[in-house]
């Protein structure tokens, strides 16, 4: 989500699943939704059936998505940015971009400082420090006036304006270069480019769908950014059927991301305090941006209201203006301990304990051998799950030597709990409990209550280090030993008024104790408690909107305004102000969504406007960015303001564009005796891992119905390679990489063809991931083979594109 947040302002799918039906072209690359999101992909089929939309699928394999596509293009794993660069270049060279959209709604007109540079020979941007493997990003900033406002050239002709830099940067990505890098014949590429470019017309829109096929790279954030650039150029963001569709994995991965399950944020994308921010004032100042352009709504200017309301939700009456709202209770962190860093620290013996609710890091993390060692080095581990998962029983391999103390606690699964979930389209819906969990299994609500009350009593009795945040936490539940989902949603996530709230005229608009109707009501004086500003409004005084199930859809656009509640503020299409031109008129009657009503002086339409309703049309649509405009040029990423093609860290070929810098120069790699990397002389083939439609990660091998469908671990091998190696269907084979090996059954296939990449024949082997040593059916953990190499922006591992060898097991 690092990518879309820094391009558009929010890290989420821009439109909903249902909105796919409004697309004229559905472009699938970096995902396989027909198999991994089958019921959502139905909307793409509907677009084709009902309005003749075309579907394009670009993938390394011929998938079921490919099978229903109008055009299928097979590319080599890890060459995606080159393909995207080719599309961007095609749109720019052939003037297919939506010029007025680009001029007014993107940063194309912004002038960049002359310290920015990209050297096509070395493949490096300005400011690279080879020692630290870091860029000095200050050199990439915009040129600004004395007030910090960016200098612009509305004609977009200034040689250092973003538009000209973009054109120059991507001019290298000709169809010939695309063919050389990706293995896609030039003619095939041009066939796709022509269709994509057509959606630059104001009455056309393209939906792009991607998932882990794009995030699982050492430059995953950048490839997603390349699609954001393309969609901004085509004017496809903010309109019906126009989106960058980040198809998330689990059913509530969007919700847990919004809630900051990861340590890089606090709930609602607030920033964890840093050590240099010793007071709340320091923290607020550092996180409250000034507008960089006229007509920038700059919504993060409200930061103080969100963080103070969070502190009030956490510490209640113990957070007062006098004690800086208990700001000192929040940990101050300067180093991000993300997944890669945490497992590496465990491996180095720098962590003592681990608490996991519904995560299986042994199966999920690349390089299983390293993870086993990491878990063995822990003093203790608490695993809360519904099954005995691999992570919980990792010690069984060598019980005497492994000293880790393990608790495995039985939890409830979805059918046994109330609560809300947020789908990929940001819609929050209620899930009702059907039955009690089996045996002594308990819900996480019960466990949280019991655990907190026990911890609190231990600190009361025994004392301990800095007990205040624990003893003084707000725990506003009727039964503190078992909070209910509805209580948490009402009192913590949505939040309440802590005093009578008055408007400008002094009238009471919300009484003390009432639930907040919207995040626009939040205050920074301690009179509101709201732990999750982004979801504020889901449970107003009039009732729980997550439970609303009204199926009416007045516009016919699939908005369903009263079914569930979409963050933020029940908007279904993000950045929808961009569906209207700079004067506020819809770009096209066909793509009409919201518009400026001159008489009323406000935005009106089918969706909740994604802008303050009375802000005139001069204001830009990307309200979460200080520019107010979408970023074609983005200096917030650590590896460059424009997406550049780098090879996967393990690649069968050298980078055609700049062999001197073949890989992402700021990639995250670790150096231990188990962090091994391979070279093509020993491991000649490309490999990629993926999921099957009949399975879900490592859970469904514990489920009878799905275990029946795919019982044995197998790998897909190009027929030609199988022939060369004398491998037949059903033979046992061994996949070996620098990290380790996995045995599986061979499935020679026509679905993955060899490609000619820069004159070299490259084979790709496919590894489905669903097996392990616990379950009805068993098999090798696919991650025995994968490399411990990570995207430097998102800290996501490179599962798609690494090197392997394959041999028959005799």
């Amino acid at each position: 989500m690092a990518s879309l947040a820094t391009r558009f302002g929010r890290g989420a799918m821009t439109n909903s699943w249902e909105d796919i039906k409004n697309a004229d072209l559905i472009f699938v690359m970096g995902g396989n939704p027909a198999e991994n999101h089958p019921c959502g992909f139905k909307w793409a089929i509907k677009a084709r059936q009902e309005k003749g939309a075309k579907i394009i699928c670009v993938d390394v394999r011929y998938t079921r998505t490919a099978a229903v596509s109008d055009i299928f293009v097979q590319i080599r794993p890890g060459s995606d940015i080159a393909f995207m660069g080719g599309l961007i270049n095609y749109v720019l060279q052939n003037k297919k971009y939506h010029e007025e959209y680009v001029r007014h709604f993107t940063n194309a007109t912004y002038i960049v400082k002359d310290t920015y540079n990209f050297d096509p020979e070395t493949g490096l941007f300005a400011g690279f420090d080879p020692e630290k493997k870091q860029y000095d990003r200050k050199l990439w900033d915009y040129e600004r006036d004395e007030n910090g406002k960016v200098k612009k050239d509305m004609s977009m002709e200034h040689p250092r304006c973003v538009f000209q830099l973009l054109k120059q940067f991507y001019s290298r990505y000709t169809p010939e270069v695309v063919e050389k890098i990706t293995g896609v014949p030039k003619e095939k590429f041009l066939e796709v480019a022509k269709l994509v470019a057509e959606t630059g017309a104001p009455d056309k829109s393209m939906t792009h769908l991607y998932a882990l096929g794009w995030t699982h790279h050492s430059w995953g954030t950048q490839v997603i950014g390349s699609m954001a650039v393309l969609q901004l150029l085509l004017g496809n963001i903010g309109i019906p059927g126009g989106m960058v569709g980040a198809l998330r994995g689990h059913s509530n991965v969007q919700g847990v991301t919004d809630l900051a399950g990861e340590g890089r944020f606090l709930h609602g994308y607030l920033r964890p305090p840093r050590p240099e921010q010793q007071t709340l004032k320091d923290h607020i100042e550092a996180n409250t941006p000034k507008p960089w352009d006229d007509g920038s709504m700059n919504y993060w200017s409200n930061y103080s209201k969100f963080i103070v309301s969070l502190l009030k939700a956490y510490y209640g009456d113990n957070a007062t203006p006098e004690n800086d709202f208990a700001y000192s209770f929040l940990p101050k962190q300067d180093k991000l301990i993300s997944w890669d860093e945490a497992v590496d620290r465990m491996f180095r013996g720098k962590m003592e304990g681990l608490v996991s609710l519904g995560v299986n890091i042994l199966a999920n993390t690349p390089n299983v051998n390293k993870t086993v060692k990491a878990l063995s080095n822990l003093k203790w581990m608490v695993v809360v799950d519904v099954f005995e998962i691999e992570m919980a029983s990792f010690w069984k391999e060598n019980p005497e030597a492994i000293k880790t103390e393990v608790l495995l606690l039985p939890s409830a699964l979805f059918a046994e709990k109330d609560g809300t979930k947020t789908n990929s389209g940001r819609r929050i819906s209620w899930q009702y409990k059907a039955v009690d969990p089996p045996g002594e299994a308990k819900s996480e609500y019960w466990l949280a209550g019991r655990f907190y009350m026990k911890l609190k009593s231990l600190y009361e009795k025994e004392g301990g280090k800095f007990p205040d945040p624990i003893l003084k936490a707000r725990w506003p539940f009727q039964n503190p030993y078992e909070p209910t989902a509805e209580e948490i949603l009402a009192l913590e996530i949505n939040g309440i008024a802590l005093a009578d709230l008055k408007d400008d005229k002094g009238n009471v608009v919300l009484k003390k104790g009432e639930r907040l109707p919207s995040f626009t009501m939040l205050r920074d004086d301690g009179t509101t408690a709201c732990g999750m500003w982004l979801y504020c409004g889901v449970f107003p005084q009039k009732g729980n909107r997550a439970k609303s199930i009204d199926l009416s859809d007045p516009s016919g656009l699939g908005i369903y305004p009263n079914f569930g509640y979409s963050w933020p503020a029940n908007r279904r299409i993000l950045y929808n102000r961009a569906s209207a031109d700079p004067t506020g008129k819809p770009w096209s009657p066909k793509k009409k969504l919201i518009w400026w009503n001159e008489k009323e002086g406000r935005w009106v339409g089918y969706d909740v406007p994604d802008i303050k309703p009375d802000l005139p049309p001069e204001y830009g649509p990307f309200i979460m960015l200080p520019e107010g405009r979408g970023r074609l040029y983005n200096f917030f990423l650590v590896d460059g303001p424009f997406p550049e093609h780098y090879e996967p860290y393990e690649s069968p070929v050298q980078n055609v564009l700049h062999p001197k810098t073949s890989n992402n120069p700021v990639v995250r790699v670790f150096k231990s005796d188990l962090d091994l990397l391979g070279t093509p002389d020993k491991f000649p083939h490309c490999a990629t891992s993926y999921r099957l439609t009949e399975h879900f990660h490592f859970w469904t091998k514990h489920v009878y119905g799905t275990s029946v469908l795919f019982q044995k671990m197998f790998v897909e091998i190009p027929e030609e390679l199988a022939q060369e190696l004398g491998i037949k269907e059903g033979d046992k084979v061994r996949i070996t990489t620098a990290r380790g090996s996995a045995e599986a059954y061979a499935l020679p296939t026509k679905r993955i063809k060899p490609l000619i990449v820069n004159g070299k024949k490259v084979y790709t082997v496919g590894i489905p991931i669903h097996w392990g040593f616990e379950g009805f059916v068993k098999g090798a953990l696919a991650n025995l083979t994968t490399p411990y190499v990570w995207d430097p922006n998102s800290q996501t591992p490179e599962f798609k594109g690494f090197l392997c060898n394959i041999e028959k097991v005799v």
Partner: protein
Amino acid sequence: MELTRRTLLKASGLSVGASLAGILGFDPKPALARVRELKIARAKAVKSICPYCSVSCGVLIYSLTDGAANVKPRVIHVEGDPDNPVNRGTLCPKGATIKDFINSPRRITKPLYRAPGAKEWQEITWDEAIEKMAKLIKDTRDRTFIEKDADGRVVNRCESIFWLTGSVMENEAAYIWIKLGRILGLTALETQARI
């Protein structure tokens, strides 16, 4: 364990045959004329959400109970919710088998403990489990808590516990666990979104 569709079909075929034989002991006409009662006719249905992918399809979960205090309702059927706009009643092969997920005999039903170096799990009570969990966390936190960093700045953090919140947890469950992690002063928090 070898699982085949045939063993499943065999089992269900037998039970249908047996019940027909029972009916045929009487005059078969009224019995044959009657429509067989739906298996969900007396079940309770609730709206839920499929736990797998992020389409988050609406599902209806049917459970059976006679209402007696000592009888636990059991899930007997799951189907796509026709009144959910995203899936309109459809389900994929994973979603269609979530009844087996809920009722899986592989579910763990008791707190388990593995002592350092032990070869087996040991069943413990919840009271023991929660006491152990709280003590392990408190002990590590108290020993490794960093009040000030090397520059003397107040940081009040604990970096030695890795806190993982699963991405299938409900917003409310996730919120409360993340809040617990933060009030403990933890900074190493993660979820599957990264992976």
